């Protein structure tokens, strides 16, 4: 994909590269022509990679000390917090890291929604991203069960019970998932095993996600196709790497703020009570990042209906590239869609809020309105707006809207080689 074939300078390098073109790959990644107008919303891809690696590394260390057993799990977490050197730091990075991961992925997803990054020719990137998101939710849910606190146990009970809504075989499936007749030790051990597996599946999908990205190249805030390389692009290194690093550092400051000064603020206090199948917590709530889906689930009085809607809310995103009929990608040039984008954000936030509240009275009404609107947005508003909307004129190149864009790619590249 880079302009000219890369040839290693040293003989050994050439010998190796002819057999396994790793150096060509590195060269491609370094030179990868990137739109020069990418804003800070585009830095979350790098931030997410950081989040994944952080979770994997801290998770591997935690697994050295954690005991996956119903009688010992809670105590082993306390052992990590008290007796393992810097165990508290590793565990708090891991538990808050999950929240930071979701914060970043939601920004990443909504960036894609705003700038139309899911549209042709990037549908596969979008679908791979959604698969990563699904696996993230599975990993986060199972990870939350591992400390075997009250919220772990009862959260697992509520979520696994969802599968019993499947007609005819639901109860058998639920029993099969549990490995017992209720959430118990076999459930914990299999969740631990899967929780260790999923991040590596995610890693594999991330490679495909980036591979698929490097075929058409990045979308950009203007949302137009650009010539690569051209004066509209810069080489990935050092222009994007330095910008990603800066954004990552700002992100890490917020991350550190949670880890060191409010490590439990995003969790639930009940999870510091050891799981007790005989005592139901007053108020079972999932972690904050799953609340909108929880609100959708509870907005339907019928169990099967609720489950279908909840999964539907995610799976509808898979067909999003075909639901959006607009030829223009970026919401910058779509005055009507832009309004609906912000209403959708508000809708999801409202759903998240009511997901944390008891499903009754005004909250239930809000949850129902929010759920209906969510589906309305994707099934009706997007296709219709795409046809009716009068979009604003789209520039022919990135340099056009950027007043001071003067240097071209080859100059930038030459400068790059000087340092």
């Amino acid at each position, binding site marked *: 994909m880079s302009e000219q074939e890369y040839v290693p300078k040293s003989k050994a390098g050439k010998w190796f590269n002819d057999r396994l073109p790793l150096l060509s790959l590195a060269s491609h990644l370094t030179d990868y022509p990137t739109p*020069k107008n990418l804003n800070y919303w585009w830095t979350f891809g790098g931030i997410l990679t950081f989040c994944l690696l952080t979770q994997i590394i801290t998770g591997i260390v935690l697994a050295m000390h954690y005991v996956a057993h119903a009688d010992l799990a809670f105590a082993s977490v306390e052992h990590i917090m008290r007796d393992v050197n810097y165990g508290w730091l590793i565990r708090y990075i891991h538990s808050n890291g999950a929240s930071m991961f979701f914060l970043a992925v939601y920004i990443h997803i909504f960036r894609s929604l705003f700038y139309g990054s899911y549209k042709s020719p990037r549908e596969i990137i979008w679908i791979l991203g959604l698969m990563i998101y699904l696996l993230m939710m599975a990993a986060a849910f199972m990870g939350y069960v591992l400390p075997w606190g009250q919220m772990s146990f009862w959260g697992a009970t509520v979520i696994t019970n969802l599968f019993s809504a499947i007609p005819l075989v639901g*109860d058998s499936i639920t029993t099969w998932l549990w490995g017992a007749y209720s959430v118990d030790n076999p459930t914990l051990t299999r969740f631990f095993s899967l929780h260790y597996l999923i991040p590596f599946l995610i890693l594999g999908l991330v490679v495909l996600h980036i591979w698929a990205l490097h075929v058409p190249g990045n979308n950009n805030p203007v949302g137009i196709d650009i010539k690569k390389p051209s004066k509209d692009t810069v080489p990935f290194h*050092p222009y994007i790497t330095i910008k990603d690093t800066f954004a990552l550092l700002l992100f890490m400051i917020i991350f550190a703020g949670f880890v060191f000064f409010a490590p439990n603020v995003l969790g639930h206090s009940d999870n510091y009570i050891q799981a007790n199948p005989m005592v139901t917590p007053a108020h079972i709530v999932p972690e904050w990042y799953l609340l909108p889906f929880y609100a959708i689930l509870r907005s339907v009085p019928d169990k099967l209906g609720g489950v279908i809607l909840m999964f539907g809310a995610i799976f509808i995103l898979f067909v999003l590239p075909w639901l959006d009929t607009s030829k223009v990608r970026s919401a910058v040039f779509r005055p009507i869609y832009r309004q609906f984008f912000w209403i959708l954000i508000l809708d999801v936030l409202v759903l998240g809020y009511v997901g944390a509240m008891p499903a009754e009275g005004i909250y239930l009404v809000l949850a129902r309105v929010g759920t209906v609107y969510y589906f309305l947005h994707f099934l009706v508003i997007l296709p219709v707006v795409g046809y009716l909307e009068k979009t604003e004129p789209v520039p022919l190149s990135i340099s056009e809207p950027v007043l001071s864009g003067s240097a071209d790619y080859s*100059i930038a590249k030459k400068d790059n080689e000087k340092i």
Partner: protein
Amino acid sequence: MKKFKLFFCILLSLTIFNTLKSAEQIDPIKVDWSFKGLLGKFDRASLQRGYQVYNEVCASCHSMQYLSYRNLGEPGGPEFSEEEVKAIAAGFEVTDGPDAQGEMFTRPGRPSDKFVSPYPNVNAAAAANGGAYPPDMSVLVKARKGGANYIYSVLVGYEDPPTGVTLDEGVYYNKYMIGNKIKMPNNLSDGLVDYADGTEATVDQMAKDVTTFLSWAAEPELESRHKTGVKVILYLVLLSILVFLSMKKIWSRVNPEV
């Protein structure tokens, strides 16, 4: 299907129940704890007094199974001297074994031992306390909404039940307790313990001291966490300034506006 409906009903009623209950409940008293804030530290003397209250009052019913006696001497905690920790540990009978003959035996505690629990198991603890298990206090502060403020408020929140409220035998009225009913009697009274450092043992003082002690027990890493946190964030801020300047320099070659 039926099973879930039942579950859903339980869930719904519990949430309703919870809101109704929380309607009666008042917010806990806000105390200006020394360990709050970015640079918060525990008050060493208060931790030591708090341990004394725990040991003389609470420990007869409440276990603290995740703490070891050595923790009492570690930095960031009550910081008893090595001799004091040894003496504290030696004051407890610890069951050990089996020995070479296969018999269990008791011996004086060592600093490496976990805190000795007052009851052999949860059922025994519940049976001895009118069916209510006195919760383990190792992480109690983290396990309650409101944390230290809530624990302190419950300790000083005992009062006579308002007219119209009847209480069963062995149930007490507490202004701050969730649901206002508590099975733990009001165990604190002025002058109950003799503080080694001469501080006057008022109910308020003891409640504050023991809450401080429990806060440390739940988060023994708090002081080093705060200290490390300040350093980490300062480092990240400085590094981001340097990276920001580098970024400006690099991008100036392409587009001075970025």
